[in-house]
């Protein structure tokens, strides 16, 4: 319930944003700059959440920012999940040298702080949406690889895998038809929990100036631009921050809920 409340607006805004904005989110109007939100004196209903230092409507910009966050969350989680699960299953199933190599890479990479690694990547590859997606994939695949490898190792010992082997299934078929379907719930939970982190990384990179660049519209950018006005126009960074908070919270709660849902021990019969 709560996760839906938190995430639905983001998804809807991300997909159909242009239908809702009261104003063009990039339209500048320096005369109307730094207008307060509607509930403060001086605010009006035309600019629900006020305007920023360029006079752009914050409400419209929040809606527009949802799209970037959504794109990055979906693609980042998809690519990191794809790479992580693939390598994790291979390492777990085939073991031996392959396992050793993949898991040592994972260990090595996990020793580097995520934000540092993504800053490095963003700097090398140049700012942009693609770069952030690549950075997120590179940072997050290790998490999947570890968990999926462990699950695969334990699945491999299960009798139905032995049955598949004595029935004459090829290794590819066993992985695709017997191992992966049993990993779906784990992957779903991992991916959902990762959505929040992906959005956070995007916002952090953008805030630090290595992610999206103006004139793009993104929550992280709104915070970094609004930082200078914190004392006089606190609403500029605050609403973007709240948007991030609500989205990440929603994604995490959804992940927790899914985990409980998939865990038979916690399921109420």
């Amino acid at each position, binding site marked *: 319930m709560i996760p839906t409340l938190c995430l639905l607006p983001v998804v809807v805004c991300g997909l159909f944003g242009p239908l809702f904005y009261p104003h063009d989110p990039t339209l500048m109007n320096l005369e109307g700059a730094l207008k307060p939100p509607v509930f403060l004196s001086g605010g009006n209903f035309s600019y629900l959440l006020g305007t920023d230092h360029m006079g752009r409507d914050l409400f419209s910009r929040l809606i527009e920012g949802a799209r970037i966050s959504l794109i990055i969350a979906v693609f980042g989680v998809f690519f990191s999940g794809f790479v992580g699960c693939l390598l994790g299953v291979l390492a777990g199933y085939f*073991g*031996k040298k392959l396992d050793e190599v993949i898991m040592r890479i994972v260990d090595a990479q996990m020793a580097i702080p995520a934000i540092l690694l993504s800053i490095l990547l963003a700097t090398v590859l140049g700012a942009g949406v693609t770069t952030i997606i690549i950075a997120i994939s590179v940072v997050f695949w290790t998490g999947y690889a570890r968990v999926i490898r462990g699950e695969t190792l334990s699945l491999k010992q*299960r*009798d*139905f895998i*032995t*049955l*598949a*082997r*004595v*029935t*004459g*299934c*090829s290794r590819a*078929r066993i992985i695709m*038809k*017997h191992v992966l*379907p*049993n990993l*779906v719930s784990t992957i779903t939970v991992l991916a959902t929990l990762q959505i929040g982190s992906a959005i956070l990384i995007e916002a952090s990179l953008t805030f630090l100036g290595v992610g999206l660049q103006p004139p793009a519209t993104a929550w992280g950018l709104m915070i970094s631009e609004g930082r200078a006005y914190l004392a006089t126009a606190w609403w500029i960074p605050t609403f973007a921050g709240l948007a991030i908070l609500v989205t990440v919270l929603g994604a995490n709660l959804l992940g927790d809920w899914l985990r409980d849902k998939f865990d038979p021990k916690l399921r109420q019969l």
Partner: protein
Amino acid sequence: MDLMTKKRILSVEDLKTYFFTRAGVIKAVDGVSFTVDEGESLGIAGESGCGKSITCLSLVRLVPQPAGRIVSGKILFEGQDILTKKEEEMRQWRGKVIAMILQDPLTSLNPCFTIGNQVSEPFKLEKGNDQRKNIKQQAIDVLRSVKIPIPERRMNDYPFQFSGGMRQRVLAAIAIARNPRLLIADEPTTSLDVTIQDQFLRLLKDMQKQTNMGLVMITHDMGIVAETCDRVAIMYAGRIVESGTVQRVFLNPAHPYTEALMEALPKMESKSKTLFQIKGEPPNLLQLPAGCSFWPRCHKVIDICRIEYPPLFPVTNGGEASCWLLQKNKDK
């Protein structure tokens, strides 16, 4: 005379499967030889950990990796040596020519898929067999042949909706789906209760009669051997200590271990309140005693038993046994 006309399908010669662990080499199967003919059932019996299961995993070349390895020996299946086959060829043989029923029906089915889906799998592996309707019908037919009531309706059920006995039948259905020449059943009834056990064994015998396949039945239950098998091989510490027809082995056991096993069977007419028990424990495969591996527990032990492992000696009424006492008889 009947025996002469039967085709030999499996002959295992001096099979050795070892496990290489940090603690040392475990000789799980150490020089085992046996044969199975068409339509014949061979029982392999012995205590837990005597190498029964590893023997049958060796037959399909699925010995647990990386520790386990088939070190030497020959497994001739209809004249072709399984051990020299390429892995891909071997894979195509599994399920098609040699099928296996696993021990635990409760965990051997994939919880994610319906019974129909899993019973269809062997048919899907068959090359050039991709008409969907055809596969479904074949799956229903094979489920019917293992006596699952109203298979059409049960195709869409998941394994958890089946009882243990029913699941074991599903496993049997998967095993016989492609009409294998040899069926290996690894303690197929251990997790079933006795009445279901009996039903299942009858079903196995029926299936065997219909298809004339060879059957290797792994078990620790001498009752099952008596009920289902033609010949029996008794294993102890990785080796076959006695083999012969079921009748001969049960009535005139030649090896003291077999004798003791027979003694340990609960008998209807027995008045004693306690069951016979073989003293001592099965030996640690890492530290086998010198000589015969059974001598520390044997009540007929003679000097030579402690020094040298006995070869197989022929037994009077057929079969063979590896015990020095038989040499004494022969010499007399």
